[in-house]
């Protein structure tokens, strides 16, 4: 029944979280632009995207995973391990691109391992990825110990630091936007995307209806590992060297961004453009506060408050939908037609 309930989700509801987020984003930028004359400088705005672009890449796949009602705590650890493997192989004399491919492969394998255990053992993804969160990071420490490895060639450094031609547009930003559009299309415009929501609404019904839930979960976690590997290549390039503790704590920031983007932690609800907006909102808040030399702790307070507001708002929306659903059912009993409104129609807000 929950599935049907969700289908009525938000219908003509104007106050959607993504919309509120957009308003916060515009208003924040509007006010910040008055507080510092350099705020709206194009080069500054583009440069600030460097700081969060790696997290943004992982947030895309995390959106899929959370919509299915799962979670991947191990993303930052997979990033760490991929980065360490990449750098260690490079130091041992391997070609940097080949080493990057191996690093990417290691991330993908770690993700596959997550998915394999989750679908085989049928334990919550939270537990399995929490275990692997320590496991992968541990391996990274075993490989590199307390060392740092750097000295990569310039062509490799371009990936994470470079701009498109002579423009102020970072290469990685373009890369991210392309991937975000693809992710949005897959989530909102394909049968596969609808299946993702269906799993989040009611996994058991999906099993029963013959949807290959396990295979989809395995795929998602594997792609999560792949994206972590990709993010690892970019952050290794941007920073120019790596340590076993690289990207520590990123998983919480990534999950925060996704939840703030309107994706419900219990699954089934969320939009790609909300997450993309949330990425840029968190990025500009960091940038804006940084411009005023406000210490990072205040940033934590701001994102924390936004997160609580987003959860409360989502809760309110769900309550509203439930009330609406009950009314609709009552109307149905009186012989009226149930308003048919498939959720994928709502997907194309972009």
């Amino acid at each position, binding site marked *: 029944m929950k599935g049907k309930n969700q289908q009525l989700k938000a219908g003509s509801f*104007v106050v959607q979280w993504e*919309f509120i987020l*957009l*308003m916060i984003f*515009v*208003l924040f*930028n*509007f006010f910040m*632009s*008055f507080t*510092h*004359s*350099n*705020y*709206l*400088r194009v080069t*500054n705005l583009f*440069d*600030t995207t*460097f*700081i969060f672009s790696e997290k943004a890449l992982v947030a895309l796949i995390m959106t899929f995973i959370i919509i299915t009602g799962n979670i991947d705590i191990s993303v930052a650890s997979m990033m760490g391990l991929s980065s360490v493997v990449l750098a260690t192989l490079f130091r041992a004399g391997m070609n940097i691109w080949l080493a990057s491919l191996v690093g990417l492969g290691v991330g993908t394998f770690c993700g596959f391992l997550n998915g394999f255990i989750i679908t085989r053992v049928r334990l919550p993804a939270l537990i399995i990825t929490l275990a692997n969160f320590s496991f992968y990071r541990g391996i990274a420490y075993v490989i590199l*110990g*307390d*060392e*740092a490895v*750097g*000295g990569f060639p310039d062509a490799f*450094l371009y990936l994470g*630091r470079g701009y498109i031609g002579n423009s102020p547009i970072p290469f990685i930003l373009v890369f991210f936007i392309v991937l975000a559009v693809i992710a949005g299309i897959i989530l909102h415009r394909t049968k596969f995307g609808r299946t993702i929501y269906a799993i989040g609404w009611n996994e058991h019904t999906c099993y029963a209806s013959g949807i290959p839930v396990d295979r989809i979960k395995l795929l998602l976690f594997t792609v999560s590992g792949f994206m972590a590997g990709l993010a690892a290549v970019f952050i290794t390039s*941007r*920073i*120019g*060297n790596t*340590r076993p*503790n*690289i*990207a*520590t704590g990123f998983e919480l920031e990534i999950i925060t961004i996704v939840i703030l983007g309107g994706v419900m932690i219990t699954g089934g609800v969320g939009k790609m453009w909300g997450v993309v907006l949330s990425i840029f909102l968190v990025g500009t808040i*960091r*940038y804006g506060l*940084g*411009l005023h*030399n406000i*210490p*990072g*702790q205040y940033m934590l307070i701001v994102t924390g408050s936004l997160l609580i507001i987003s959860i409360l708002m989502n809760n309110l929306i769900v309550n509203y939908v439930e009330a609406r659903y009950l009314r609709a059912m009552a109307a149905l009993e009186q012989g009226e037609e149930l308003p048919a409104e498939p959720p994928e129609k709502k997907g194309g807000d972009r």
Partner: protein
Amino acid sequence: MKKTLLLILAAILLISFSAFAGGSGAAKKEITIAMIVKNIGNPFFDVVRKGWDEAVAELGVNDVWRGPEQPTPEGQIEIMESLIAQGVDGITYVGNDPQALAGVAQKAMKAGIKVNGWESGIVPNSRDISVEPVSAQTIGADQVKILAEQIGYKGEIAILSAAATMANQNTWIKYMKEELQKPEYKDMKLVAVVYGDDVREKSYNEALGLFKSFPNLRGIISPTTVGIAATGRAITDEGMIDKVELTGLGLPSEMYEYVMNGASKVFGLWNPKDLGYLNAYVTYRLVTGEITGKPGEKFEAGRLGSYTIEPQEGVTNGLVYMGSLYRFDKNNVGEFKDEL
């Protein structure tokens, strides 16, 4: 309803953009110099800041003092990006991992900002000038000398450092090892180098680990203020006073207790307050163009007097040494404990 709201938002955005399109190139009148420390909430940098503030007041410039919450290069990179965006005139940084900061430091220099790299490893083209408190060789060698005097030039010793990526500590350790090659230390054996990551608990546990792994351990050198205080506590807690001697770089306020109870009879340090003071002056002189960072140039640094920029191996930019290592013991630690 939704469309109207969207339109209003778009209008607001447009207005705000156009309002500042012309204003962004405004000329700056005042000089702003910035300091990026390893992390905030680190007592050492709190003292550095006192000297920095003193110099900033004397010079009459604006200043920015920042550091990440955790001592990571990622956090420092973000801060430096933010300082570039603000358009400050000069940046002084002490890198958690100088290799990792080189890229963004080059970006700052390209943006016309003067960059002063304060006591961290040698990475070409990553700063206009370097400032070091005491030459790394002296720091390393002096700590070995102090410990040798304590343990009678005999026995197993260990080093408890900060993070393995911190170039300062690594350079000092390199010189400690070099010093230990000398014949007078032939009966001393370095058995381990461990890392407490400049975190109190981790350093404390590493010290306990050393006592356990090396029962014949006679001395520990900890070239980091967090590490030496944590080790002092570990020696006191475990009743190892006089069995294991401790020296290194510490703050009198944190080490007072351990000097008085004998856990660490002598330790060394430069004056962090003067270091902050000198760094502000060096950065200011760079910004005003009085110096460019080339070896041989001379400049005045307020109450510290005049300095000559010295050449540095492996890079083109010069280096300023503040002075020599200062020893604290039972007789003088009390005078400094409230200040440092």
